[in-house]
């Protein structure tokens, strides 16, 4: 599902974020990507979503060689993945329903189908009753669950999460990671970047470790 081969990333000001990073994540697998702050976890996720391009190396995601992906195909590639951020990036002036519906609206799904799928996604994250609320009216945990519903509503093959429990207390973090495990049980490939060791130990899933832009453990 995900394959990185000898990937390097140097930012314009000269910071080398990644140096010869390589690993693979199989279809249907759930993997944690961990390491201290500045290790390059977020950079790896940005490269996988094509928010950044590598300086060198090859990245293949869901059969797409990202180095050869034409710019006009990029939006359609992004519709194959779901992304959850630590700050959830919800649109505060839109309702929970509209936030979750956004990937479906973008993809041109018909109105009736959007309603069914958004309500089903909100049901899964336990927020069906908050569909008309606006994000500022929700707690941090609820906002993160809305972000997860938005990442999953279009049934992506791959779910990527960048520090999804970073702003949450232990109990809420358990709930969020349990949600990811549940989706993984249904066949979704999950890659979570986190430095929450408690969640990593609790989940008993494969771990890829980065340190200062290098691989620390063998993939």
């Amino acid at each position, binding site marked *: 599902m995900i394959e990185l081969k000898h990937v390097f990333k140097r930012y314009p000001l000269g910071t080398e974020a990644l140096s010869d990073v390589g690993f693979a994540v199989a279809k249907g697998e759930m993997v944690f990507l961990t390491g201290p702050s500045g290790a390059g976890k977020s950079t790896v996720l940005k490269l996988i*979503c094509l*928010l950044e391009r590598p300086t060198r190396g090859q990245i293949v995601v869901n059969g797409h060689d990202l180095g050869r992906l034409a710019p006009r195909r990029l*939006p*359609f*590639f*992004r*519709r194959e993945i779901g*992304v959850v951020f630590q700050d959830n*990036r919800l*649109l505060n002036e839109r309702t929970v329903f509209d936030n979750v519906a*956004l*990937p479906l*609206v*973008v*993809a*041109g*799904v*018909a*109105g009736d189908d959007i309603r069914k799928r958004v309500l089903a996604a909100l049901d899964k994250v336990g927020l069906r009753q908050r569909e008309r609320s606006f994000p500022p009216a929700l707690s941090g945990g609820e906002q993160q669950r809305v972000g997860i519903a*938005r990442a999953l509503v*279009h049934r992506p093959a791959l779910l990527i999460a960048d520090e999804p429990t970073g702003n949450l207390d232990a109990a809420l973090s358990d709930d969020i990671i349990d949600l990811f495990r549940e989706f993984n049980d249904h066949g979704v490939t999950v890659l979570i970047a986190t430095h929450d060791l408690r969640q990593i130990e609790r989940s008993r899933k494969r771990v890829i470790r980065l340190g200062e832009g290098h691989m620390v453990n063998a993939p």
Partner: protein
Amino acid sequence: MKAYLARHLQVFMRTIGDFTRSPAATLLTVVMIGVTMVLPAGLYVGLVNLQRLSLGWQPHGSLSVYLAKGMADTGVVAAIRRIPGVAAVRYISPAQGLREFETASGLGAGAAFGRRNPLPGVAVVTPADSTPGSVARLAGRLKALPGVAHVQSNLVWIERLDAALALGRRMVVILALMLGLALVLIIGNTTRAAVAGRTAEIAVVRLVGGTNAFIRRPFLYAGALTGGLGALCALLLLEVALAALNGPIAALDRAYGARYQLSGLDFDQALGLLGLGALLGWLGARIAIGRALRAGRV
């Protein structure tokens, strides 16, 4: 197709929603565009009215043909009628001319010239083609007729008016081009500010697979709608201005015993103005969002 139209309708309704959320800013932009558009539109309407008024004063640029004394007027008038390019001829006999002169001047019968009538017979000729070139050619042919003493045309006046109207028309075009550019810039700047205020939203849309066309769409609707509403505002301003001018013009009419009413744009022209406003608004928004997307600012 139904889903495609539904998506467009949804974006359109959201755009209207955005307008109603910031009514003061929207109104300000719309009025600014309205004032910008009313200037060339008003000048155009003014020119059209001036042209109509001048045609009323001098129908078709008539020629006055003074007949030589001692010739049989009926023969000369018949010869005039046979000349190609003559639409109509009205013959004023010396006696009729004298009566008209006495009435117009307010002098009593015989008071002006005594018993003698010095006035010649006059044929007032209406040319079929009132363009200055045609009128000049016709005047030349009339002068060449035997029995014609003098031909007086209002050709110089027609030429001057024609030149003034041509200048006016050119000014309308130049003003329209300049203010059209101003409208594109106004809406482009408004769109640029709107894009800057929605960068976070655009980033999320990109992340969930939004294409450039999807990102552009609400801004294009906003631009076209703003331009269209601006044009509507211009039409209203124009009507108000015409209504305000019609009162004094009616008073002037009464003083001169004439009857004239200013006319505004007709339905097709008004529709054209609305379409032009929407098109220029769309263009301004398209340029602004296109530049932002190309520069990677959003």
